[in-house]
């Protein structure tokens, strides 16, 4: 039995329906493709604190990254505030995805449109900071990304569309990606969309993985594979950002 969502006369004697809280009942999530919801402004103090933390991370990288070797800032694959598409054969895209995802002392989210993400590829101590959204449908994945971007708590969100059929991807209105771009600019979040072939027209940065791998490469250290990975970065409609958030070498 599902409680009706429509506004009827309440059953409690004397209760005035006008006294029901102003927010609409049963509204739940914003409909697919709707725009215009205001994002909550961040606390000014929290923003300044985050800036301080960023400065400390640059000046004292060893203190922020524990036992891991510090990652050069020019290796950042997905800049904040820009819709990035990572496309190409799934092996190279997967490497770029993990490289962007795993950052020391940071939260991230993987929105898995076809439930294909394997957590065993992620260091176990990072799992507690990795939100995994397992979707069965593309629409659910799109709405989940929308909610996470509006939330603004996570600095990095990855949407994995590699195993989604091309026909289904083409059905996503272009306005969806443009809406994501505006949210990214407001929240300063980094959003990477992983695809098997280029299809995100609104992507400001497209990283195309070019390497192809053999079976023997499965036995090699991943760091070696990353170093040999060939990719091309293409900025569209926006000037390349400064050195602090650059393309893949």
């Amino acid at each position: 039995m599902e409680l009706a969502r429509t506004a009827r006369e309440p059953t409690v004697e004397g209760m005035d329906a006008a006294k029901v809280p102003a927010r609409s009942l049963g509204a739940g999530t914003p409909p697919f493709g709707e725009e215009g919801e205001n994002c909550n402004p961040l606390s000014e103090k929290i923003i300044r604190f985050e800036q301080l933390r960023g400065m400390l991370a640059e000046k004292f990288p060893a203190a922020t990254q524990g036992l891991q070797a510090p990652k050069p800032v020019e290796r950042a694959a997905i800049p904040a505030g820009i819709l990035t598409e990572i496309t190409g054969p799934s092996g190279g895209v997967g490497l770029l995805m993990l490289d962007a995802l795993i950052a020391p002392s940071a939260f991230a989210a993987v929105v898995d449109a076809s439930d294909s993400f394997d957590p065993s590829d992620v260091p176990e101590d990072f799992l507690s900071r990795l939100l995994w959204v397992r979707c069965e449908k593309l629409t659910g994945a799109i709405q989940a990304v929308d909610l996470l971007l509006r939330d603004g708590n996570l600095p990095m969100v990855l949407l994995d569309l590699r195993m989604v059929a091309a026909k289904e991807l083409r059905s996503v209105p272009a306005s969806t990606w443009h809406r994501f771009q505006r949210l990214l600019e407001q929240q300063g979040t980094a959003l990477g969309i992983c695809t098997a072939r280029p299809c995100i027209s609104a992507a400001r940065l497209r990283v195309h993985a070019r390497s192809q791998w053999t079976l023997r490469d499965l036995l090699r250290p991943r760091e070696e594979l990353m170093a040999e990975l060939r990719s091309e970065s293409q900025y569209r409609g926006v000037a390349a950002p400064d050195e602090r958030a650059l393309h893949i070498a």
Partner: protein
Amino acid sequence: MYAAVHLPTFHLQAALRWREELWAVPAAVVDTQDGCICERNLPAAARDISVGMPVALALARCAELKVFSIFPAKEAALSGLLQDIALSHSPFVEATQPDVVVLDWRGVLHQIDWHTQGDHLLKDLQASGLKATVGVAPTPDVAILAAHETDAVSVVRDRGEYLGPLPLSHLTSDERMLSVLEDWGIHTIGQFLRLPKADVIARLGAGAEEMWRVANGRTQRPLKLVAPPEVYREAFDFEHVVETTAPLLFLLRRFVDQLSSRLQVRYVVASQMTLRLPLDDGEAYERVFSIPEPTSEADVMFRTLETHLDQLTLPQQPVGLSLEIEAMEPTRQQFGLFGTRLRDPNRFGHTLARIGTLVGVREVGFPVPEDTHKPDSYQLAPRVAWNAEETGEPNREWLGLPLQRCRPAIAATVETRHSCPVRISSSLADGRITEALGPYRLSGHWWDPAAWQQEEWDIALGDGLYRIARRDNQWWVEGCYERVC
């Protein structure tokens, strides 16, 4: 000085809580043990409904009389509210009875205008919807008497002058003792005090000593200070089944506002909420909400409940509602300079709840590996620590490309030669296998019926690299490493 607060018609106030409109119509509370009216409001009194009248007679006199029974959960909530308001006026409060509290104002207030102080207390009580009376006196017992004898605020400065004319029924409810004193011609407290104390106690027993102590009005007994509750609760029973979420949300909002105020008065925060919906078939639906970052903000708590009710499906219609909040001391935590934390954990928790309604509650969370070597064994935890600090564990060397899993695994037909796969046929991977690495044999739980074992291969086809596995003589495509489209 001490202040006592009394809630006259306590049972009726509890019964009519959240239904203030019923104060304007005849209403009464019945004692279920003897079936008689124990309290009634003014409109009922105007219709000649009196205390002690059988309910059948009362209904005969007034057909539109609203009759309620005593509801312990509501009365407990009302008592809790009374104590919380009292604690905002004094740190030393005694919950003498469910409808009476005593505040110690000695050394706390240096005002000499006790009437003004009493007025402030009364206004706070009235602002919370309580009909109360306040008595201020040099001792707790006299303050309680004063609270019972007044309609608003009564300040007693001279105990003897105040107590003298009062009837003996204020000292005891023992009918036998009152009858004896009546026979002696003793009708007031002043007359009682003029009797020789030792002789009265010898004639009437220990009860008379207690009467003397109260009548004397000089006893400064220590207060049994009230301990702050660990659980705050509000409840309501509907007269009919509820068909929409509107009444539930309306009441929940009022509950949350009320409980939030009580939490803030005590400087505590909510760590957990329990929502309970009694259903029409006698069962009940219960859900516990853990608040990511304990708070006393009403909006945060209500948002969580509203999101849950929006997607709730029940087997039967609810007939009641209760909300219980577990309180705790607020944590004081400095932001770590060398780690990150979520900017707003409560907002994030709410976002996760909304995502859960889209994809399913079990399908969003933080992966936690299960205690097994079986591949792809993870559970999703709804909540972890909100501070991302490094654990400092040594790095493990990762090999090869990350795997894109097929969930569920895709059934395949594999042709083997010398135990090595040479051709595969499935909906994802199809064709001649040019190269294969394996077998990688895995097994576990050999000691119980959940024993498992499988043989994995990494294979190369013309269009990419895949992982396949054989379990129970059936081949499956587990995922792909590289696929060229």
